[in-house]
């Protein structure tokens, strides 16, 4: 009996050694035949059972069977391991240089002025102002007369106007949309009017075409406090919660009282006397604003003894200049791809 059991132990050891050496599925198959095949070592041991006494036979038999099961599991495990190894060898042959450039197109790029326009719209939309749009070729009534700027008014000198055929003009501000909105919807009214405007002017801070966003609120008992509230909410959303605002008295024919809003310099916060952005003043002019002049309400078909309101206008291009630290307004409209994609290759 013991000679059979001794061979079981020998065989287990042999199998272990063989499996440790195997490096390929083909070799594995050969060894499997050697140990577990029809003419293999296990079969040979089982045949030897016949030489044992009937008492020994079951115990030795079950030991051999255990060995066989153990071997089959070991071979199966080795097979799985080798399969993975062989697949990975194949992957290794397909190795890529991941630093090669990408194929196809990437993300494009936004235009700073359009981007700013949508950001500003979102701020005011969140406050409850709806968007209103109007024509860019306007008439004298909507662009001037209805805004309390009659033809002789010296304030017309404030805005150099482009005229087009048919005695029309390119709107010099987005304010005509106020008039159109009042005439169309009446009071109460809460609107913002973004869009292109045109003036005969061209230098690093003036472009003959630029973008404004105008706001108008008409209701009962409207206060300057409400105007400040709206614009300071905007300033904080746009330039950060620490931004400060100040108001200077000013003059616009369509508002009374009129003022201008400055915000603390976004670049230096008022701390750099040689700041390029605020020229050391610490303040940046951001918006012209005021309480709607009763004549404008009247021209818009609204009774100024019942309603009042406020309006403001701001240059979106200027905000974009500040926000993206761009030096010359005209860069925005040159269509230079390198500039617009912020120096990128595409």
């Amino acid at each position: 009996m013991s000679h059979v059991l001794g061979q079981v132990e020998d065989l287990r050891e042999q199998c272990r050694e063989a499996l440790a050496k195997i490096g390929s599925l083909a070799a594995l198959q050969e060894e499997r035949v050697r140990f577990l095949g029809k003419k293999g070592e296990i079969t040979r041991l089982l045949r030897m059972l016949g030489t044992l006494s009937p008492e020994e036979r079951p115990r030795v038999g079950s030991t051999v069977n255990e060995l066989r099961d153990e071997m089959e599991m070991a071979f199966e495990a080795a097979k799985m391991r080798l399969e993975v190894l062989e697949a990975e060898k194949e992957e290794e042959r397909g190795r890529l240089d991941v630093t090669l450039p990408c194929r196809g197109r990437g993300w494009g790029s936004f235009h700073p002025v359009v981007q700013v326009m949508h950001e500003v719209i979102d701020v005011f939309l969140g406050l409850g102002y709806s968007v209103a749009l109007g024509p860019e070729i306007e008439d004298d009534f909507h662009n001037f007369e209805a805004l309390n700027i009659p033809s002789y008014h010296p304030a017309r000198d404030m805005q150099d106007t482009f005229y087009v055929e048919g005695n029309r003009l390119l709107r010099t501000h987005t304010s005509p949309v106020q008039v159109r909105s009042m005439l169309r919807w009446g009071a109460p009214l809460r609107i913002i009017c973004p869009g292109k405007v045109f003036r005969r002017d061209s230098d690093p801070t003036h472009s003959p075409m630029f973008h404004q966003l105008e706001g108008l609120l008409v209701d009962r008992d409207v206060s300057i406090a409400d105007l400040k509230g709206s614009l300071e909410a905007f300033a904080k959303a746009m330039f950060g919660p620490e931004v400060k605002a100040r108001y200077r008295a000013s003059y616009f024919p369509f508002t009374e009282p009129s003022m201008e809003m400055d915000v603390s310099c976004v670049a230096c916060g008022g701390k750099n006397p040689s700041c390029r952005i605020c020229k050391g003043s610490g303040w940046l002019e951001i918006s012209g604003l005021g309480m709607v002049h009763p004549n404008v309400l009247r021209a818009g078909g609204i009774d100024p003894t019942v309603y009042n309101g406020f309006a403001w206008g701001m240059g979106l291009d200027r905000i974009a200049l500040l926000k993206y630290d761009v030096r010359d307004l005209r860069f925005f409209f040159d269509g230079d791809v390198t500039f617009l994609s912020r120096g990128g290759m595409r």
Partner: protein
Amino acid sequence: MLVSLNWLKELIRIPAGVDEIARRLTMTGCEVEEIRRPGEKLRDVFIGKVLSLEPHPTREGLQVARVDYGGGQKTCTTAAPNVAVGKLFPYAPPGGVLADGTVLGVRDFDGVLSEGMLLSAEELGIPDVEVEFGLLALPEDAPRGEDCIAWLGLDDVILDVSITPNRGDLLSLVGIARELYGILPGTELLPLEVPALPEGPWPIPFEGITLEDEGCPAYSLGLIRNVRIGPSPVRSRVRVSLCGMRPISNVVDATNLAMLFWGQPLHAFDLDRLPARHIAVRAAEKGETITTLDGKERALEEEDLLITSGGVAVGLAGVMGGANSEISDDTATVVLESASFDRVRIGRTSRRMGLHSEAAFRYARGVDRTKALPALAMAMAYMRDFAGGELCGAPLVAGDPREPHRTASLRASTLRTYLMSADMDKASATLERFGFSEVRERREEAARTFAVPAARLDVSIEEDLVEEVARVEGYDTVPVRIPPHLYASASLTTLMTALRRLRESAMGRGFVEMITYSFVAPEDLRILRFPEEDRRGNPIAVVNPIAADQSVMRTSLLPGLLKALLRNLRGGFRGPIRMFEQGKVFLRTDGADFSGDGHEEPFYLGGIVFPGRDRRFADDEDFFSVKADVVALCEACAVRPEFVQAEEPFGHKGRTARIRINGKDAGYLLALKPLIGSALDLGAPLYAFEIDLESLVGQVSYQFTEPMRYPAIYRDVSLLVPKATPAAVVEAEMRRFAGDFLWDVRLFDVYEGEGIPEGHRSLAFSVAYRSAERTLSDEEIEGIHGALRSGLAARGYTLR
């Protein structure tokens, strides 16, 4: 408006430094743009007297002067022709500094040591003040040895104040003084001394003044005899110059100084050159002309006001005098006009003629009538002092030189609404410092009425009073509140919603967002070869363009994008470019005459795709890759576009599609006409598209179906189709014959060539059938697909 602080100090005592004055003015509505210190760099300039003069021993033209300048005597050389013994000139000894910063020292001129310098006007930084070539001559009574910088008034500080168009009153020293009194607490008004006007009748015959037009409510004339025209005294010339005007002559400077002081324009006529001893103010007649002081002949309109004499125009009222009656070097008798004119009329005339004289500028912004006589008195006194003029006779006055009495009321409730607080007593105090006076007999519990000062032509309604109160108090003191009126939800508009979806989709597909000018050059449109009848070739013209390449309104986004592309290519850009822009185009709606409304301005989305000149880096673009962009953009707005073979004047004959959305034309997709591409030297094909946003707006609503639980069954169909038949037509036919279980038809192969008859191509489609309720059986599929095949065969297609 340039404000001399030295001059201002003759009117008010201000308890603040110049920076505080400037800050206050800026915060209350008059932005101080600059603080100038004209004599800032000058150091050690004295009033020097030339004691002796001798020629330089070797240098021709150079003289050696001995100068007494108070601090002793010095020797210096000069080449000035007007140097003379006994005369006074500015002198700077060694160590003195000129206006340009030059520090003077001792220089050796061929053995003569020259200490410091006798100075010219230019070296003092006031070139306008020079009246003769050479040194700046000082009068005999100038205090020898004194500080010349202070004596000339070059120690002045000048504020450059930007005056808004409503505040004509601030275009004067008295106005600025009054304003500062109102905005700076503690400021004291000094007594204002107005020279007395002469009295009695004129010693010469003069028929008087006739006012024939209500545009001139008041007109006065002063008489000054025996004037000797010459330069004004040097210190007056300096003052005129520091206030931004050019010194001209004693008579003209006198009128300008009075105008700078009072804001009242004045005009001097040479009596002997007036056609008659009479002045009439009337409206111009159509066709009449006048030659103004600047020598230009100007055509007049009925709205223009004229000063006439003997029926002849001698002045364009309030704008500019006539050349025929102007002061000349031999003028002896001056009649001096100080008048009030309708600001609207003067404004119109001045705008129409583009003549923005100091006078017109002030009249158009409002000059109140009460300034006319004091200004006249001041100018006459100056003419006496500067030109030896003899003031004789009381000025002639026609019309009413008083301002109509005006009042404005302020209610506490209004103040509270606007400012959230209402201190009426404080408001009254503020207004009174601006010269308003409360009409106490009309005081009510919650409202006060104020007489408006004559100068404040800008104040008429309650809101104007609110502004006066608020700007002094400061808007920063008004609380901040989110408007309680913002209670309703806000809308972005369907257009803006579509714009945003498109914009983000385009950027996701690699497009660079552009803004190009709304105006283009006519040539930019011409290269697109629009035929006569195409309105895109007939743009709306800008009447007064800034440049020829911005002279017509764009009718398409393509020219701007093309121009941007070309600029990039010229700049050496080689890589692929995809650009898009959203914006309006401007199209005529009623033919060429552009009458009535005449135009429409649809919002377009436009894009161009350029694979790049450098093939090594070129994107793999073709018509269909760009078509995929267009489809994706439309789908971002929940729209599926159709493409129909079409033509555009600037499109490749065989590669141009009309984009159709919901059965309507919505734009184009094309390869640029190769002729245009080579004319522009593009060096690679260019794809372009434009879509009218109208067709994409408001379409955003998606519909979902149930998930499909049962598998689709696929069959292929391959057909021989005449080349002229579009694939989309074949596909539509297949959909017609495929029955209710058709789920999808997809083209997977197009083949022409060997084995395909001439003029034909083979199209292969994969057709998917599917039911939502069950798995379709093979028999069913055979039946349905068989019906499709026979349907197609019956339509004349050859199935392969």
